[in-house]
């Protein structure tokens, strides 16, 4: 074969390989969605969708009447996720700004790896710390008899989402061209003004991505909330109530449910709701990002 033809062949092979992998990601995502949909739809033969989404009582094994309402679980997931992000975002952004703008390079060399290690702690261990350390501390702080509640779960989730938020925010802040900050400082702005008015807005797309990924981590986390939030089925009335998130519920019940019963399909329906919620969050992030980028231009 001529050298030219060999080169062309290699080019084609490489393109084909990358194309294959790209398509694979889409195939897998579509596959998951189709599986969830196929396993969730049979549930609605017996459960009315309105009851499923608006009833706060979930008791499929009740000897009195089987109830399939997931409102309490949706509320629990939202409560725990929102509070976790409210805690993690300012701290995460603050640490990122500190590392990229203020810290001495030696401090940065030490702190950055430590943050990455924080990301590697297994969720089971974090849950265990929630039961053994954070629970009694919260109990004493609020004068309750136990600390297995939504606040406990939210704090643990914030700890788990922090490394993601910090890493990505810091990378985005560092990617802002130094000409921006130099221009701002040259025009008489203080370092604080430069950070708040120039650097952060310039890095906003990355920071929003960090926020979304952190939130995605918090919504989908199962083991930590399973161990530390008390798993009570009641509708949460406050941060100090025991809650049960959608993820914990699926983890608790999927093992015991006989295949192809209404209960089984209902659990997949919960999974579908979770999938749609995460998808929605990502969609909103995408739209916001695009609108902001348009404004930039």
């Amino acid at each position, binding site marked *: 074969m001529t050298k030219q033809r060999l080169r062309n062949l290699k080019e*084609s092979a490489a393109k084909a390989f990358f194309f294959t992998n790209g398509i694979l990601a889409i195939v897998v995502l579509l596959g998951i969605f189709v599986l969830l949909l196929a396993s969730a739809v049979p549930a609605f033969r017996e459960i009315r969708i309105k009851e499923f989404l608006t009833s706060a009582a979930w008791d499929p094994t009740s000897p*009195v009447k089987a109830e399939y309402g997931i409102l309490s679980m949706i509320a629990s997931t939202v409560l725990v996720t929102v509070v976790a992000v409210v805690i993690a975002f300012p701290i995460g952004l603050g640490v990122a700004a500190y590392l990229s703008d203020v810290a001495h390079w030696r401090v940065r060399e030490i702190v950055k790896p430590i943050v990455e290690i924080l990301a590697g702690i297994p969720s089971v261990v974090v849950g265990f710390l929630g039961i053994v350390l954070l629970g009694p501390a919260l109990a004493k702080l609020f004068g309750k008899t136990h600390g*297995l509640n939504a606040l406990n779960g939210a704090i643990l989730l914030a700890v788990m989402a922090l490394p993601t938020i910090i890493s990505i925010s810091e990378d985005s802040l560092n990617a802002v061209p130094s000409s921006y900050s130099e221009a701002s400082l040259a025009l008489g702005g203080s370092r604080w003004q430069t950070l708040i008015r120039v650097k952060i807005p310039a890095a906003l797309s990355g920071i929003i991505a960090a926020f979304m990924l952190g939130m995605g981590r918090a919504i989908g986390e199962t083991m930590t909330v399973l161990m530390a939030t008390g798993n*009570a089925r009641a509708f949460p009335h406050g941060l100090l109530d025991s809650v049960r998130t959608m993820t914990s519920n699926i983890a608790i019940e999927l093992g015991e449910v006989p295949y192809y019963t209404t209960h089984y399909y209902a659990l997949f329906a919960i999974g579908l709701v979770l999938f749609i919620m995460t998808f929605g969050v990502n969609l909103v992030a995408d739209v916001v990002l695009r609108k902001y980028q348009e404004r930039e231009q």
Partner: protein
Amino acid sequence: MLYERFKKWIVAAELAMALVFTPILIGQGKKMIQIKGSDTMINLVQILAEEYMGKNPKATPIAVLGGGSGTGITALINGTTDIANHSRDLSPKETNQMWERGVKPRVFAIAVDGLSIIVNEKNPLNQLTMDQVGAIYRGDVKNWQAVGGPAQPISLYGRQSNSGTYAFLQEHVLKNKNYSPDVKEMNGNAQIIEGVAADAAAIGYAGVGYVVDKATGKPMKGLKILNIAKDAKAQGYSPTDKAAVDSGNYPISRALFQSTNGKPGADAAAFLQFILGPEGQKIVEREGFYPIGAKYIEANTKNLK
């Protein structure tokens, strides 16, 4: 150029592979006896399995898993386990499902348990009636004051719906009514005990083998085991009182079961005979539970044939 031509084929090939690989679930492993189910029984059966394998090194290895009685029975119905541990009777729904799937269960009672109601050691109460326990767990009674304790909201700890203990309590103490939605559903007996020991207003339930410290014979650190009376006029008995559990004076006693699909195979049958024999029953007692009585022994022998 070549790439352009074959794009369509690449996509088709990937979709085909995805469709082919997904249903192929290879469920082969080394030949082992699988035992799944009750969290109440898991420690007991694990120790029985270890001692049995120690005495019979050539026997088929035994794997014991948890997941709750519901999980074990489901696994038996689905054919993913050889023996199911369960701490409650089979429900009518489960019996129907077994019928539909052609599963013919043989149930062996291997031990007797006095289901204990535990509170924190700081709680001044020593006794409750069955009705009071039922009312507390149904959520009808929300404060310790209503049953003679301090003015403190009751903090409820329980198991999850896959648990045989949960189902047993619901049937026999809650009289088949719903649990209160405020029960904190913990992931196993051990977590209930930890929770109750740390929470002054707590009430929980667990098998007697879990609440008694085997070394000292006293309740585990931080716990108090309540006496339970059949009604307000009867005498209360403790689940640690062997005579009371045997005679039925302790109102919440139950048998712990192992079930197989049809007549147990040679390996499983040998293990079951070990458990039901004198050595196994001695281990049952050592682990804090009670050995089976005459009426169960007869039924077991019949089922082994």
